[in-house]
């Protein structure tokens, strides 16, 4: 399969005004304002293959959403090339708009005072979906998400999770082969989060849809996306398999120890980096090779009640990466 998305040296900068506090500054601002430039996306390049499911990770304001908005044609970039299925997104061609959809967890395209079915039907007309396809897709999706009985209920009477499911149906009614999801699970309870995740997985597998996802919940990305792109301060700091994100950390292990009686922290520091400690419980980070020996010595020297040796979590790896790029 070919590439769905190619991004080369993408740059997006925003202009903003600096405002100082105080009466004098306010008066000054009336006549003169200092313009500043912020690089939201700074020289970003990547490619995504058709049918891939990729997670964008990054802190607030890292540039994830801005990148998504450029890919979907909402924003013009300052510089760089983007090709999405051969289209330049910000030309906003009608054919281009037919092949993708974007879902934002914090923005709703549904009419709050109408049943969700009406908004979905409106999208059917806007996207020029044939009656037959519309019936079929609506039946299939509403059944999968288990909201068939709720299509006739006013959106503002729906729960948050139900609303997001309707949002998904509305944006998939034209069967896009590309989906952008910006925090689709934000504010959802665990059950709804899982339902949304399972659904996305199904849609990706069933229709070979390319899906790009941003989320604050590691679980979303871990479950869904084999590949992750990590963005920090507008630049990509990691692009590859999520599991390998802590390649460096594969060389490290965590030893977790529970003690029968309180001990002092000082002797523990000799073994490695002491990550957590409260007298009865300690977490030490050590090299892979030393782990065995360290543990042996700890068992000998301290009243250890229980212990485990673990890999570092992906989140640990990500935090480490941020620290490295800062």
């Amino acid at each position, binding site marked *: 399969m070919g590439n769905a998305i190619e991004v080369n040296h993408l740059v997006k900068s925003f202009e903003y005004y600096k405002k100082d506090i105080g009466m004098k500054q306010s008066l000054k601002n009336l006549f003169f304002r200092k313009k500043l430039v912020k690089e939201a996306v700074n020289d970003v390049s990547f490619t995504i293959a058709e049918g891939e499911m990729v997670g964008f990770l990054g802190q607030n304001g890292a540039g994830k959403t801005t990148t998504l908005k450029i890919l979907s*044609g909402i*924003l013009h970039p300052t510089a760089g090339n983007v090709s999405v299925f051969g289209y330049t997104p910000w030309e906003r061609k009608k054919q281009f708009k037919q092949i993708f959809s974007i879902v*934002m967890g914090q923005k709703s395209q549904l009419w709050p*005072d109408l049943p969700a079915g*009406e908004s979905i039907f*409106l999208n059917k*007309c*806007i996207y*020029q979906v044939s009656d037959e396809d519309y019936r079929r897709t609506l039946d299939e999706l509403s059944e999968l998400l288990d909201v068939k009985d709720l299509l006739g209920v*006013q959106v503002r009477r729906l729960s948050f999770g139900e609303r997001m499911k309707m949002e998904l149906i509305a944006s998939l009614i034209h069967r896009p082969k590309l989906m952008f999801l910006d925090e689709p699970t934000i504010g959802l309870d665990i059950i709804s989060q899982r339902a949304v995740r399972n659904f996305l997985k199904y849609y990706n597998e069933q229709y070979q849809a390319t899906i790009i996802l941003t989320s604050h919940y590691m679980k979303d990305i871990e479950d869904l996306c084999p590949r992750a792109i990590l963005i920090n301060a507008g630049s990509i700091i990691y692009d590859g398999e999520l599991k390998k994100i802590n390649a460096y950390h594969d060389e490290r292990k965590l030893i977790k120890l529970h003690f029968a009686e309180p001990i002092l922290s000082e002797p523990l520091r000799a073994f490695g980096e002491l990550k957590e400690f409260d007298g009865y419980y300690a977490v030490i980070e050590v090299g892979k090779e030393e782990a065995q020996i360290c543990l042996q010595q700890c068992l000998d020297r301290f009243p250890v009640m229980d212990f485990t040796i673990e890999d570092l979590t992906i989140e640990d790896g990500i935090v480490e990466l941020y620290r490295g790029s800062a």
Partner: protein
Amino acid sequence: MNVVIELRRHLYILALFAKNSVISQMEYRANFITGIFVEAAFLMAKLLYVVIVFKTNLHIDGLTPDAILMFMGTHILLTGIYMGLFYNNFQRLTEYVRSGMLDLMIVKPISLQFLVSVRYIEVGMPIPNIIAGSVMVAIGWSASEIPFTFLNVALFIAFMFIATIITYCIMIIPALLSFWFVNTSAASEISYSVWDANNMPYMIYNKWIQRIGTFFIPVFIITNFAPLVVLHKLTRVEIVWAIVAPIVLFVLIRVLWKQAMKAYSSSNL
């Protein structure tokens, strides 16, 4: 052929919007009724001008108070049309830009300008204006002894249509400014007060204001030309201009719209 299909599709979607708007507004019956009251209050303020015209037996440029009433009625009628079709949408456009809601509309495969311009049709608010305006036009019409022929009625309606397009083009400008400026309430306020320049037939203004308001920012066409044409008081040049102006204006707004879209920097609220 393609144009016909597209036109039908847009009209169909427009009908859907109208249906959805009506259902939505029926949800809030109290708002619906208070909306009517608000407009009735504004209508009252406008009727003060009528009071003055009749109390002082005002004649302008050979127009009797009854003929003037027809101009005022046209103005009120168009205020109703503006309130019903555009006012809410333009207010919302500013809101979409500020909150970044526009993002979800940009990605739809349909003209964005169409989508945001006619998404909400207001049902309650225009009622007082449309009733009062129609009555005033009817009274003015018959008192001015204009023949009630098919041609006259068709002409009047055609000029109302032209007026609606010009209204759209002029009144959308403040909303478009919100792509560049955070707070545009003063610009809206100015556009409302320019709108109210049509409270009176434009013959009361001096020549220069008349020219600017007819040819430069053609607000005066909106409420003056429809009555003037049935009174046979439009020159040939003015009739041609009445046909050309909405086209030129619409093209200009289209250009401005495209500029605005380029300036759009989606907000992350």
